[in-house]
Each structure stands twice: as structure tokens, then as C-alpha cells.
């Protein structure tokens, strides 16, 4: 066999949860090690070889000028660049800053904000460099991750379905929490991938895997209203891990409308932190 493909993992603004998912692969990771040479994965090892890389996994969003530069360099070094997780694919929960004044946050958090270099927004990797594949989730699902890596090795397309979480609920026999318990659930507009975890534990879907394809958000939020949910709560529900994914973002902005101030969770948080 020729030299094994070189795999690198890089982190940007994120919580490391997606990299942990990779470590959580355990047995499969050993098998992957047979097929791939993991040459840069600081979460797992201090081995940090320079590029070029055959496959690069990128966790996290772009929040600083340095990172915006660093991702361009990584892209140049990478044959395939795959983003992993909500931060890397939609800006993550830190994209809440996009609706607020990030200077306020800096002042609230840091004693000497003048030493902090930060962008006004948290944005997806694909807004900065071309991305070959985006793996959704907060965190990603390890089966999907293995499938993507395997797909690259075998030159096939990854099996990451675009359908809603509802289908997975039904396949595993979970009763609809929205219909049977009146729990607001983003499942009908969220892409599958987690295996429909939360509804199985009587919780509504939080939208960790971002919008499904052609999601009908207006209809769902209208139904949320009809069942007594207040607009600010709906907006907060949409502004979670994938707040800046275009479909979630547009609907939350539509709902927030001229009441943006009262609905604007990040501003409220910033005010709380300041006081």
C-alpha cells in the first residue's frame, strides 16, 4: 500500500466537543489509524506535523482576524477540508454576538479589552474558504464522522441524510413530544444526524444539527404561537447552537422584527454580565 493518507484536525472558536466525539470513537479510531496517518491532532497527541494534508477536519468558527488568516493557510495545505460541528458550519452559539455589539462583550468580560483582537462576528468556515463537506451537529455524531472519513477513503459520497429529525423519531419508535405532550420541538425543521436523541427523553429537539433541507419555519413557529409560546421564547429557541444558520437566522429575525431589542438574547446577556 502507498503512504497512508495524512489526516489533520484543527480547532477554531469552539468547545472541543466535536474533537472529543472523535476521541470517543475509541475502537474505530484505532482501526482508522490503520488506514490513515493522523499527523496533527493536538487534542489527542503533541504530534503536529506541517502540511500538506490529505484530509483536514476543522472544528470551530472564525472569530478573530488571526483565525481568518489561519484558515486560509490550512485550506492551502489541505486536499479535502471537512468542517465538523455547528461552530464550523454555522458560527456556533458564539454567533449570538452577531446580533450584539461585541465591544460590549469585550468590556464586560476582559479587564483590559484593548489587548483583545476580535471580529464583530462569529462565522462559518465556509464563509472564509471553500469547504468540501460540512458535517453538522453540536456535537457531531460519531457514526457520521466515521462515515465521512470512510467515504473519503473509498471515494464515495457520505451518507448524511438531509431529512428531518421526525423521521428518526419514528424509526426508533419515539412518540412525538409536540403532539402528545405539547413540548415545543424543532425536530420538524432540523436535519437528522443525532438519531433523534432528545425526544426519546421527552425533550423537544434543540436544533443541534441545523436546518433540514427546505425547512418550513414559518409554519412551525406559527404553531408554537398557537400553542401559547411567546415570541421571545421562540426567538431564543431558534438562536441556539445554529443561530446563524441562514434559515434559523432569517426566521428569528423575522419574528424579532421591530421588537428586536426585547427578543435579543445576546444584548440581554451582555447587559446582565455588565451589571
Amino acid at each position, binding site marked *: 500500500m502507498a503512504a497512508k493518507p495524512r489526516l489533520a484536525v484543527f480547532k477554531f472558536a469552539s468547545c472541543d466537543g466535536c474533537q472529543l466525539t472523535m476521541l470517543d470513537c475509541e475502537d474505530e479510531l484505532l482501526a482508522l489509524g490503520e488506514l490513515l496517518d493522523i499527523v496533527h491532532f493536538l487534542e489527542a497527541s503533541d504530534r503536529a506535523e506541517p502540511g500538506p494534508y490529505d484530509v483536514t477536519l476543522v472544528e470551530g468558527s472564525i472569530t478573530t482576524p488571526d483565525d481568518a488568516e489561519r484558515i486560509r493557510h490550512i485550506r492551502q495545505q489541505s486536499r479535502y477540508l471537512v468542517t465538523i460541528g455547528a461552530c464550523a458550519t454555522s458560527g456556533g452559539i458564539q454567533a449570538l454576538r452577531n446580533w450584539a455589539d461585541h465591544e460590549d462583550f469585550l468590556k464586560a468580560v476582559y479587564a483590559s479589552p484593548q489587548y483583545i483582537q476580535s471580529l464583530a462576528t462569529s462565522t462559518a468556515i465556509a464563509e472564509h474558504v471553500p469547504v468540501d463537506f460540512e458535517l453538522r451537529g453540536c456535537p457531531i455524531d460519531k457514526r457520521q464522522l466515521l462515515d465521512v472519513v470512510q467515504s473519503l477513503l473509498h471515494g464515495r459520497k457520505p451518507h448524511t441524510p438531509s431529512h428531518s429529525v421526525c423521521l428518526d423519531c419514528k*424509526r426508533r419508535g419515539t412518540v412525538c413530544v409536540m403532539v*402528545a405532550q405539547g413540548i415545543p420541538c424543532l425536530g420538524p425543521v432540523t436535519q437528522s444526524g443525532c438519531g433523534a436523541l432528545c425526544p426519546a427523553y421527552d425533550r423537544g429537539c434543540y436544533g443541534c444539527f441545523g436546518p433540514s433541507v427546505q*425547512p418550513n419555519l414559518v409554519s412551525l413557529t406559527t404553531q408554537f404561537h398557537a400553542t401559547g409560546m411567546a415570541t421571545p421564547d421562540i426567538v431564543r429557541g431558534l438562536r441556539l447552537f445554529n443561530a446563524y444558520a441562514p434559515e434559523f437566522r432569517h426566521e428569528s429575525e423575522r419574528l424579532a422584527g421591530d421588537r428586536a431589542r426585547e427578543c435579543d438574547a445576546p444584548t440581554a446577556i451582555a447587559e446582565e454580565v455588565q451589571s
Partner: protein
Amino acid sequence: MSGPDTQTPVGASVFLSLSGLDDLIRSLKQSGYEVVGPTLRQGAICYDRIHAVQDLPRGWTDRQEPGHYRLERREDDACFGYVVGPQSWKQFLFPPMSTVSLAELSTDGWRVTANDGANEPRFAFLGVRACELAAIAIQDRVFQQAAYTDPIYAARRERALLIAVNCTQAAPTCFCESMHTGPRCSSGFDLALTELDDGFIVEVGSQRGATLIATVATVGVTDEQLQWAEERRSGARKQQRQMPRETARDTVLGNLQHPRWSEVAERCLSCTNCTQVCPTCFCSSVHEVTDLDMTRVERERVWDSCFNLEFSYMNGGAVRNSIRSRYRQWLTHKLGSWHEQFGTSGCVGCGRCITWCPVGIDLTEEVVALAGGST
């Protein structure tokens, strides 16, 4: 009346006490059946493995409206005092996930072994409603009465024992009466129960049923009991919703460009719930499940839905690229083209798609609107 020598003939009825039902469940398990019946789970009545009468949702009932389902306490301890829940027997006969074949790579190439159904389980279903019997008969046509037979469905179906239960009430979402699929269980069962206060009238529907009921103690039925049973069953005939059964087919197929499709698409989430709770929907996809070095590959068939964009993918694009076209596909298939394909409507009037639609879309209302009536 009981005992192997004095079997109750097909078509006749006997009385079975509540403890007799317990005996019946035990008898089935001893005969090697996996007994499946209604149980309480996650705020709904779900079909699951049961071991005794005490596993049944005694004293519970359901309240159903479009997009709304709640359990409530009954005033009595009825075992079957509710209508239909989010699941159907489809999940046992046509399981949400099943392995259709196994491919193994050797130096000679790929060797594919197809699932011939030999190892599929043997179920006894307890509590099959009339609409569900109708649904099973429809899936029979899909999976074993067309040009090909699906070995997994056929094996499970052949082995399954069907103990039906007549409904004694209807939900506001029920419309089996207008579909001529209920509420009375008329055929397709091995045994059919009608619940009374102190036990069940059991109607024998097949030789298999006759043999089964002979394994437990029963007594003869009185005319009074038969009268009570009839009264109980009549409670299920009061149904709020109706489907224009005779005209629905022409209405949906004759109005393919009706503006109503766009209107319903504004509400439809395309989330697949209606298709998944439907007891006759049969769409599926096949996935490859591989080991890491791809020398042993299973093909897994999973439930899919015509509401998924990917479902109609061809040459890199989807044929049905809008919620409008996907809702139209579902409804025209269910009520219209199903007739041409399988000689029957695909709808049995169980109302699940109405209750379990998160936004409460009601197909009976859609058909009326498509026919030009006001809604």
C-alpha cells in the same frame, strides 16, 4: 365450551373472562409467539411486547384532535378503552429497519446472501382495530400480491396471529366509517374481541383462532351479552370526520394544478410524520452498512418518505423539488393512484396523519377544499 375436542367453529362467539385473557397471553407465549399489544409509553398508547393483562393500559383513554393527543383517565378499568395511537402494526410486519442482504468479499468476488425471511420473528398481535386489519390487508397487496414478494414481510405476515378488538368509541380524527374499513372488525382476524365490563365476547375468525381459543377456558355467550356488545360497538360509529370515499380519487387526481396544493404547502412542514404514522405507507430506502475495510456489507432497509427532498433524487436533482409537489404526491398517491396500483384506496380512515401532524393538517379537509368546497 372449551377444550381441544370441542373447538368453537369459525364465525361463532364465546365469552372470555379478564383472567382468561391473561391465560390467552400466557398460552401464546408458551406457543412461541412474541405477544405485542397496547402499552403506555411517553404519554401515548404504543404497541410493545406484553406479558400479561397488567401490561395493558387499563383505565386509560386518548383525546385526539388535529396535531393534538393526550392520555386521560377513564372512569372504568377497560383494557381497550381508547382508539389508535401513534404506532401501527406496520412496525412489526414491515419494520423500520431490516436487513435485506449481506455481501461478503472473498478472492472470488462478492457473494450476496439475501434475507429469505427464515429467521424473522413470530408475533401475536393483541388489540388490532378494524382500520388496522384493513391496513394490513393493503400492505399485503403491496408486499406479497404484486409481481414480487418481499420475503421479510411475507415471513412475518404468514406467522403473525391477529387478535382484533372492536372499537367502542371513536376519536374526532377517526373516519373509518366513511372509508368502509370499520369500526366493526369483519374479516382478516384470527380472533376478535369486544370488551364488556367483566370480560370479552370473542369471535372466532379462523381455524388458527379456533385452535388458540380452545387452549383457554371460555363459556358460551348469552343473548344479553351479545346485545351489550352491539351497544358498545355502536359507540364507535359516531364519527365527526368523513372522507368522500367515492369521489376522493377523482378529486385529488383531477386537480393536480389546484391552488390548494400551494396553500397546504404553506402549512406543511414536509417533516414526514404523516407518512410514518400511516399504517399503509410503505416507502423505504436501502443503505449500505459496512465494516471499516468494506469486506462485509449489510444492506439495511429503512422507512423513508415521499416528503423527503432526497427521495426523488435523480441525476443530481430532485424531481419533486417543493413541499407543494411532495404533499401532492403523498395525497394523490394515498387517495388516488393507489387504486390503480393496488385496487384499493391507500387510506383506511384511522386519522393518525391528522392527529400526528405537528401542525394539524387534515386530509379530509384538503380533499373537500380540492373538490372546490369551502373549508
